């Protein structure tokens, strides 16, 4: 029995390794704010949200599958949250009997497993009840399959069969074990057997039935009794194992259900928070991997929207057919925010989530990577360039064609000429290899070089200076300009009476 709510044909892997660049993505794209909104303070939901956001689905069909399950959840939030609670209860059931487990003793494993199995049978009854009552209202392929499966597999007959086994495991006629002669003549191949049906009175007379030799171990012979109980343990070991593993499987079923529903509960939490702010969201339209579509209306930074009090205005981008999106212009003009929203939207789309925009259409990518200027260790300029190069070298070892690389002020730690030359060579090699690059820079030498050599595969956006107090930004298309606004910013912060420190 599989939940299959995350993938049409396979399990969600909640403990799969996150992509190696996950720490950079989390920091550079402000994912913590997004994940915290999904988790709503619950550690488990946080973990599922994090795993989910890094799904990296590349197939439009798989993305749509999740979008539909999510749409059902938005329609029936109470039922979905109720199912999640039931799964949580299922996962926790073993804690109710765990205290009785004595390690390595098949007897106690058998006893514990029977107790636990009784709890599971009860929870499964409730689950089957939800399926019968609410199943017909759901529309998505994922939920429809899930509820049909519950109704089919968990029939009344099946519940009766499980209970019969639990009754038989009391061994009223003794523990019957078969064996053969193993190494050194020791018994081996112990198998627990069902007693044959009782014959009539004739069987019990001497000389009838099978020949049997009986001995007894004295009641006071503790060592002998211990040996006997060890033999019993060997006999029931396989059956105890089978029942305990069945418990594990059922536990595994509930765990999977909790993980998969946990992702959607996180989505519901996020949905509630964003829509409460009156911000728009949309189900994105994914195109297949390897394409070069990227178009959005009203694309905004979801983490920023969750953080500030007011509303956030988004940007429109028409970058279909572009391998390079280069963003230049004024400091604090929304360049970083825009770059973040690009990465967030790409990740959210490829997780099956809605996107923080009025509309969003993009090709899926083979992986999102970020290379941001690191503010720390400003002391050693030489060391900083080394550090940047080293990080870039790691990224180029991981990124594949169809990938998306977001650079924020990369190679600004050396002089402009050097930094530009390094960056130009990297951008050229990456874009030629089919990797999309979003690059925020104030290296004019770099931006100007890319602009003059543009063969139509590059888009140039330029941040504008804004009136004081304005917090939302627009990034229109525009060629790079030779001066950044650092000087202005300086004067703005220090006041016009100060001479600027740099020319």
């Amino acid at each position: 029995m599989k939940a299959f709510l995350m993938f049409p044909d396979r399990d969600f892997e909640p403990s799969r390794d996150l992509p190696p660049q996950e720490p950079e993505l989390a920091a550079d794209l402000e994912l913590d704010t997004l994940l915290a909104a999904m988790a709503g303070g619950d550690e488990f939901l946080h973990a599922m949200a994090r795993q989910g956001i890094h799904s990296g689905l590349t197939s439009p069909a798989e993305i749509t599958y999740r979008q539909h399950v999510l749409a059902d959840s938005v329609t029936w939030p109470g039922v979905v949250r109720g199912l999640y609670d039931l799964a949580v209860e299922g996962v926790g059931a073993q804690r109710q009997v765990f205290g009785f487990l004595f390690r390595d003793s098949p007897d106690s494993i058998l006893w514990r497993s029977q107790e636990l199995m009784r709890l599971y049978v009860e929870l499964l009854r409730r689950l089957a009840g939800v399926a019968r009552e609410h199943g017909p209202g759901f529309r998505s392929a994922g939920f429809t399959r899930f509820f049909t499966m519950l109704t089919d597999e968990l029939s009344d007959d099946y519940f009766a069969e499980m209970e019969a086994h639990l009754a038989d495991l009391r061994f009223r006629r003794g523990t019957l074990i078969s064996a053969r002669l193993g190494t050194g003549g020791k018994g081996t191949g112990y198998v627990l057997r069902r007693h044959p049906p009782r014959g009539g009175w004739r069987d019990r007379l001497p000389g009838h039935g099978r020949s049997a030799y009986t001995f007894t171990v004295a009641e006071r012979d503790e060592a002998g009794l211990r040996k006997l109980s060890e033999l019993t343990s060997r006999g029931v070991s396989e059956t105890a194992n089978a029942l305990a593993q069945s418990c594990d499987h059922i536990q595994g079923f509930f765990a999977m259900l909790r993980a998969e529903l946990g992702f959607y509960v996180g989505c519901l939490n996020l949905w509630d928070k964003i829509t409460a702010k009156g911000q728009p969201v949309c189900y994105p339209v994914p195109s297949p991997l390897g394409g070069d579509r990227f178009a959005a209306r009203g694309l905004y930074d979801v983490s920023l929207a969750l953080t500030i009090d007011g509303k956030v205005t988004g940007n429109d981008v028409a970058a279909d057919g572009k391998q390079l999106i280069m963003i230049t212009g004024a400091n604090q003009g929304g360049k970083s925010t825009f770059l973040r929203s690009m990465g967030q939207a790409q990740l959210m789309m490829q997780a099956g989530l809605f996107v923080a925009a009025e509309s969003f259409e993009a090709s899926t990518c083979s992986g999102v990577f970020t290379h941001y200027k690191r503010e720390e260790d400003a002391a050693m300029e030489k060391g900083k360039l080394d550090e940047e190069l080293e990080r870039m070298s790691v990224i180029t070892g991981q990124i594949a064609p169809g990938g998306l690389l977001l650079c924020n002020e990369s190679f600004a730690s050396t002089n402009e000429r050097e930094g530009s030359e390094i960056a130009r060579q990297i951008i050229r090699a990456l874009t030629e290899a089919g990797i999309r690059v979003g690059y925020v820079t104030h290296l004019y030498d770099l931006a100007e070089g890319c602009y003059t050599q543009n063969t139509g595969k590059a888009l140039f956006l330029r941040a504008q200076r804004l009136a004081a107090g304005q917090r939302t930004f627009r990034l229109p298309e525009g060629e790079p300009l030779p001066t950044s606004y650092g000087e202005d910013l300086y004067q703005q912060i220090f006041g016009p009476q100060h001479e600027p420190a740099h020319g």
Partner: protein
Amino acid sequence: MQAGEPAEPSFFSDLNLDQLFSAITEGRDEYDLVPFFRIPLHSAAAVSYRHEVFRDLQAPAAAAAVTTFAEQMRTMRRYLAQARKLRYRYQKEFWFLDAAREYRESVSALAATLTGTGLQAPGLIAFREYLTGYTGSAAFAALTADIERVSSALAAVRYCVNIKGNRVTVTRYTDEADFSAEVVATFAKFASGAVKDYRGKFRNWPEMDYVEERITNQVARLFPDVFGGLDEFAAKHAGFFDDTIHAFDREVQFYVAYLDFIAPLKSAGLEFCYPRVSAEDKEIAAEAAFDLALAHKLVPDGGAVVRNDFRLSGSERIFVVTGPNHGGKTTFARMAGQLHYLASLGCPVPAREARLFLPDQIFAHFEREEDLATLRGKLADELVRMKDVLDRATSDSLLVMNESFASTTLRDARFIGERVLDQMTALGLLGVYVTFVDELASRSGACVSMVGTVNPDNPAERTFQIVRKPADGLAYAVAIARKYGLTYPQLKERLAA
């Protein structure tokens, strides 16, 4: 082969022969092979006798037969030891039966394979004849038949034990249904992936406890003929192990151990050869020779093994090795010493081709790292050891010297080195002399200068090649700065890969 208990020669550790032989004999303690590696041969005929055995055992069929035989014999010895240790009669007899079965199978398999193998070595041919006679004997046939009959009867025994409280009832097994299979079937629909194993972890002592013994007694009552047959077998075949086969089992391990040891190195592309050996001719030569102990360390990690050539002709006797630190000089010296010692054991040597001398003794004079405290003390110690060596060495000895007298000034080292070289030359022995003193390389016509080389395009890179040319005291440039592989052409290549 005969083996006493000789002590480890003093040059073993300097030439890394101690670690080499302990790696070769690793896992074969029960054969006590160490003595075999401590007794060198001094005649070409004795070396050639072993070469022939090695050659025969290198044929895949013979090698496989001997390996299988050895494994089975080990198993058999373990079973016999177990039978001796136990006290319950039926248990002793069970283990004894297993040992006899293993013995019989190993001996017949070996006889069968060796018969179909084209042997050339006189030593192996004689053993094969013995084996043919032994396996064709009536006693061996009787052993075979008895094992088969008793074993198959025991394997067919099936019984049931019913435990209810302290009452134990033993019956024959009559197809009662498997309980756990039914449980598995019911819950199969939840099965998914790997699960934890909850089966009890039972310690399987070889001994039965007395409850098991009582159960076995009841099983014996249920199957009286089967257990009676076991009793008879033990009484009839008590002394099945043959002495000649016992001796073969041990001695062949000398060859197998060495061949097994070099097999992975050969797979890695390293070459071995049977050297031409002589106890008279000192015109030695080798092509593509390498340090076997070092190769054993490098090859598993994919490291490259540097191979070097050497040759002495006419009155040349001594290699004087100079060149950069960590440039492979010591390795070269060890290699030359190892090659000669391995040749004198009758083993294939690590070289593509070799012509080697069988020395009467081998000496090593290596710098002692531990005595760094007082320079004078160290030099004095070295000189004492040097004198001792020169007193004992003859014209047929091999002397390997590594950075001797490096603890003193250049002037002193040159002075002492020249004197020592002159004595070595006067003796006419074979020598390898690793030194930082370039002048020693051209001391006399007996000396051949060998130099560690560097890559001319990149002086920081050592090639570890030691070649015959005049000493030149080459220095190195600084290491080249590390690149990050991020230029356009490099990236194009990396991303295309």
